[in-house]
């Protein structure tokens, strides 16, 4: 398949999004004429655009889809939940099919046919009897006789030639023609062809050239062979042979615009793919928005990070020299580079509202499936986040919502019994807080039953029978790998890959998940995510001569212990008693095999710092020689040589020009 600029896919994707949100709105008001018209128009535009981009199959699919909404808006039948459900499936299909917009893959065309069939079944049932429902009868054979009134020559640019060329290229059609052309001019032109178009449809093709010629079209029966000229008769057996069931099937496929074979031939006269990409390039040039590839932004970001690092060095040097001028230059440069960083950073920001339709869609599908009534409210959807963060947030957020509906919101009867409104409410609030974005998902469902959680946790051996855990701590057990409180594993959630994955994914983007629940009243899940992925708020530590940065979001407490206590540890990981509590401690020195010879300071240091960090509910200490302080580290990927280094997620250059390695706390804790 030819490679297209993303711009063209974006165009179609935007249209699909707007259509999807229309359908979701229609769910509550089946006969909202305005929305119906809008949906029809959107479909029509998608079809038109698909055709213009030369995606015939895609356009033909939408054409069939559009017909249904044409009928609905013309009141041939009523819209129903089932039609909306199917329409949403079609949207999903069309969205996926953007990757295979010529339907070259077997499964794309199969899905297309299935969807169209389902739509046909639904709408055929609904078509009010008496209205003509079109029955497909298979292709007919036509005999067309053209007698020009003007002088018509082959290839003289008259539109007639193109109309005929068009007829000829109708898929799976046998086409025979015979021209008499004394002295170059065509006097009579006989054509025999097979087509599934109706007679009037074919005739109308010639409507705009009828001043120039006389046409006569008739359906042709094999018995009428004497009407054919001698040379044409030779092709008759071929037509007879092809007019069986097989041909009808092929034509049916062709009707949907789907070719069984995947050979997109570029015939003379079609818009050449190259030409199209040219025009797209021009098109992109003309729009006021510029589409830039993510790679370029990443590049730019990494250069600016470089600049910020240089700037930090300059600032340190300027301090040494005590030069007024150098100091001023350094300050100005700091100002400029910070602004530059923020501008570039804002390029890749997208609003959370991008996800809104997906939320609504999920709620729509699930509440239907589970027979629950749910209302979704979103506040602050204009809050912007880095595109990459939004992408990594999508799945966790959808999972949380799924949990809210499946486990949180009760059935309408249950809710009524408990004195709640039948319809449950889920509120998604988003707002900025310092360098972070906070997303709160609140439901007014049944909350977390801590007793049930406790029972299950004991059953699964996650906690001991006699462990005395507070409610708060019990809540967090749902983040434990493999924990699922659903009594029965339902289709919706509770596949065992539950909240622990959510937690893990959010921690991967250095976010935090906070859970707050009151049994019987509801649950609030708060997600705190950094605004940017390329700058880390971290704790800078030192082990021997080496610097390590621990992402601040995982850090809980810091304890200073005497070195002697620590040196007793035989292995890289061991249990230490800290403030009366047992804590497993990972020694960075031992993990990275840095012996005492590695650092001259090592022996002088009488203390070690233990930083307690947690991943999920696993809490461990990380031992370092000393803590230097808090840093804003510009994350840089490590080169190829360090690819196999699993506990390090990247590096950063410190103000003094030294390298600090950024630890992947998640892996460090889990592997030790």
């Amino acid at each position, binding site marked *: 398949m030819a490679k297209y600029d993303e711009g063209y896919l974006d165009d179609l994707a935007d249209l699909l999004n707007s259509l999807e949100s229309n359908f979701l709105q229609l769910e509550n008001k089946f006969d909202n004429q305005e929305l119906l018209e809008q949906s029809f128009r959107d479909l*029509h535009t998608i079809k*038109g655009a698909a055709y213009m981009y030369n995606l015939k199959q895609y356009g033909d699919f939408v054409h069939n889809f559009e017909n249904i909404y044409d009928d609905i808006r013309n009141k041939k039948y009523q819209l129903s939940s089932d039609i909306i459900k199917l329409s949403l499936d079609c949207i999903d299909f069309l969205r996926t099919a953007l990757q295979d917009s010529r339907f070259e893959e077997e499964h794309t065309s199969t899905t297309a046919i299935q969807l169209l069939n389902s739509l046909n079944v639904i709408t055929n049932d609904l078509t009010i009897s008496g209205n003509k429902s079109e029955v497909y009868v298979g292709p007919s054979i036509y005999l067309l006789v053209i007698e020009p009134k003007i002088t018509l020559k082959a290839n003289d640019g008259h539109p007639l030639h193109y109309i005929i060329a068009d007829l000829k290229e109708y898929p799976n059609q046998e086409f025979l023609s015979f021209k008499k052309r004394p002295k170059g001019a065509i006097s009579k032109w006989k054509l025999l062809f097979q087509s599934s178009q109706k007679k009037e449809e074919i005739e109308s093709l010639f409507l705009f050239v009828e001043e120039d010629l006389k046409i006569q079209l008739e359906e042709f029966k094999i018995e009428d062979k004497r009407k054919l000229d001698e040379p044409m008769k030779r092709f008759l057996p071929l037509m007879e042979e092809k007019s069986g069931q097989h041909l009808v099937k092929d034509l049916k496929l062709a009707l949907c615009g789907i070719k069984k074979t995947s050979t997109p031939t570029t015939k003379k006269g*079609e818009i050449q793919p190259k030409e199209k990409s040219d025009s797209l390039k021009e*098109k992109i040039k003309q729009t006021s928005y510029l589409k830039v590839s993510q790679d370029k932004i990443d590049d730019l970001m990494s250069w600016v990070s470089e600049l910020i690092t240089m700037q930090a060095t300059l600032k340190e040097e300027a301090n040494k020299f005590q030069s007024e001028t150098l100091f001023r230059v350094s300050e100005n440069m700091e100002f400029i580079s910070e602004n530059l960083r923020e501008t570039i950073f804002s390029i890749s920001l997208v609003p959370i509202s991008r996800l809104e339709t997906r939320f609504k869609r999920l709620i729509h599908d699930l509440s239907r499936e589970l027979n629950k009534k749910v209302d979704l409210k979103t506040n602050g959807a204009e809050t912007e986040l880095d595109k990459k963060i939004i992408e990594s947030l999508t799945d966790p957020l959808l999972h949380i919502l799924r949990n809210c509906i499946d486990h949180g919101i009760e059935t309408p009867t249950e809710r009524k019994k408990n004195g709640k409104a039948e319809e449950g409410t889920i509120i998604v609030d988003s707002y900025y807080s310092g360098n972070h974005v906070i997303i709160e998902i609140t439901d007014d469902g049944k909350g977390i039953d801590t007793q049930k959680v406790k029972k299950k946790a004991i059953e699964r051996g996650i906690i001991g029978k006699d462990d005395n855990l507070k409610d708060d701590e019990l809540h967090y057990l749902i983040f434990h790998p493999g924990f699922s409180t659903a009594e029965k594993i339902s289709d919706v959630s509770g596949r065992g890959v539950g909240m622990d994955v959510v937690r893990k994914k959010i921690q991967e983007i250095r976010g935090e998940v906070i859970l707050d629940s009151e049994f019987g009243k509801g649950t609030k899940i708060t997600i705190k995510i950094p605004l940017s992925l390329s700058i880390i708020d971290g704790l800078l530590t030192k082990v021997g001569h080496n610097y390590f940065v621990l992402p601040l979001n995982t850090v809980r407490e810091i304890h200073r212990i005497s070195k002697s206590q620590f040196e007793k540890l035989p292995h890289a990981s061991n249990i230490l008693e800290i403030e009366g509590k047992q804590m497993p401690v990972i020694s960075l020195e031992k993990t990275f095999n840095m012996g005492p010879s590695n650092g001259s300071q090592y022996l002088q240091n009488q203390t070690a710092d233990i930083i307690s960090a947690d991943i999920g509910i696993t809490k461990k200490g990380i031992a370092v020689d000393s803590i230097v302080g808090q840093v804003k580290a510009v994350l840089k990927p490590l080169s190829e040589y360090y690819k196999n280094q699993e506990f390090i997620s990247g590096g950063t250059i410190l103000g003094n020009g030294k390298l600090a390695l950024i630890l992947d706390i998640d892996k460090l804790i889990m592997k030790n």
Partner: protein
Amino acid sequence: MKNRILVVDDFQGIREILSNTLKRKGYEIHTASNGKEAIEILASEPNSYDLVLSDYNMPEMNGYELLKNVRKTPELKNKPFILLTTEADPEKMKSAKNAGLTAWVKKPYKLDAFLSQIAYAIKNRS
């Protein structure tokens, strides 16, 4: 002098594709995003356009209504007018023909067929 075409379509993507294609073939292109805008443009300079190329299905005023409206102006009575559309409803095509439509081009079109329709319409204007 270049022949000047007014392209009317409510969808920007299509306007751009049409403009770029036709510009490369040596036409001068102006665009309008709806029927009302098209009428205003044509009314201000009825003689400076050689052809109107319009979409059929547009909100508020569709291509057929635009055609009927355009034909009311004496200077535009015989202005070549092509509808470019995904539909091929014989009834609609007949009424458009009666209202003075020059040609009906169905999307998806073949580029040279499309261009020949335009060239033919401009060449044969009366």
